[in-house]
């Protein structure tokens, strides 16, 4: 027996209506139904952070969410963050500070960093490192990612004052 549900949602500004099985993970829906393969899948149990996306304005794990639960949601994946010509601020800082090597963790890191910059003052390096603790990176050793986040925080402060 298989069950089917119809969902409507907005991903990177585009409306989609699709019929899916309730057991389909949002991460697989994004990658395999919408063919947006920028969202990566590592562990499928919430540990690695590679599948992190922006869901109604908050960073969430797409592997711990069912596609049916995204009915009515607005989602941004790395494809919707910016373009090569017009990168988002956090993407720019990642590039300037060499905050990626293989790039596997990067889409999830970007979604995490964007949300963390929005929600916390991030006044110390420790606070940034704690904020990154839910995303694993096997390449960079994290230092350059910390540098990129610090650069965004510094610039934001300048923008405010």
């Amino acid at each position, binding site marked *: *027996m*298989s*069950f089917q*549900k119809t969902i409507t949602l907005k991903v990177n500004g585009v409306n989609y209506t699709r019929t899916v*099985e*309730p*057991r389909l*993970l949002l991460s*697989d829906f994004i990658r395999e139904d919408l063919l947006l393969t920028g969202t990566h899948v590592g562990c*499928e*149990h*919430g540990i690695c*952070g590679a599948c*992190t996306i922006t*869901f109604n304005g*908050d*960073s*969430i*794990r797409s*592997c*711990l*969410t*069912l596609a*049916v*639960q995204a009915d009515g949601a607005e989602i941004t994946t790395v494809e919707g963050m910016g373009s090569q010509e017009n990168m988002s601020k956090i993407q720019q800082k990642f590039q300037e500070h060499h905050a990626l090597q293989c790039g596997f963790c990067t889409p999830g890191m970007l*979604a*995490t960093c964007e*949300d*963390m910059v929005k*929600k916390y003052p991030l006044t110390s390096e420790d606070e940034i*490192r*704690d*904020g990154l*603790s*839910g*995303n694993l990176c096997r390449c960079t050793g994290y230092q350059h990612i910390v540098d990129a986040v610090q650069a965004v925080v510094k610039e934001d402060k300048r923008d405010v004052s």
Partner: protein
Amino acid sequence: MKPAIFDYEVATSIEHAVRLLSSSDNSKIIAGGQSLMPIINFRLLEPSLLVDITRLPDLQGIKSTLGGGISIGASTKHHELETSLLIKERFPLISDAMKHVAHLAIRNKGTIGGSLSHADPAAELPLLMLLLDAVLHITGPTGLRKISVKEFLVGALTTILEDNEILTRIDIPSLPKRTNFAFNELSQRAGDLALCAVGVTISMSSGMLGRTKKIKDARIGLMGVNDTAIRISEAENLLIGRSSLDSSIIDQVAQICTSTISPNTDLHASADFRRHLALQMTKKTLTEAWEKAQASKTSENQNKENQSEENL
């Protein structure tokens, strides 16, 4: 690692959710999914029906209650608890401790009802609710019942909830006046489940008419070192009525806590190491709470002095 086949329904009212849960032998509530989804992805659990309770308005929000308490809807997310101004004002212990709960992306979805119902022995919310004497509202086919957190937590990952019952609200009564607290947690990485955590509250008497201020209410709770979060009433009783705490009392309290808990050995730490942590962290946390109580006593006196100077 993909879930087995199941059906999914969005509950439109608490009664509807109870009916849906009762309609199948193998149904399960899904709230934030932050504990349930890993289990389902691993196929450690193969439910036939998931009932989504996150869209029920009755289960949302943090409300102020008469007498300085609060009432929290079960589907309130961890990040809302972390940032709520009402909680910061009335129960800063919760605001402080929530940063230890997982990572932001998990806190953006995980709920207080889910954390309590999942009853992980190393989770923060069961300990916090136990410390704060919270009362849990549970609705099932026969209606509503209210119970204490102590009765609710039966063992590791086990509560008294029946398959067709829903935890709907969590009521926290106000703390006594002049309460100070401390909370400490040790985990391998920020956001990991705790190896050990300790929470202490100390409430002082008013010291009116020149009487010495004494400890009127004291609460000590630990988690990560026992089947469930645990309050140590024998240690609490040893503190009540005291006007000062020296290191021998603090040692004695920590010894009592350490001999009451029954920690397990697992991949992350041995039982002995957990017992060591419980001993040291109880001393540290009790000392911090006591120092805060002393400091606020001094600032209260200073306020009084300032006021009398102003009056002159």
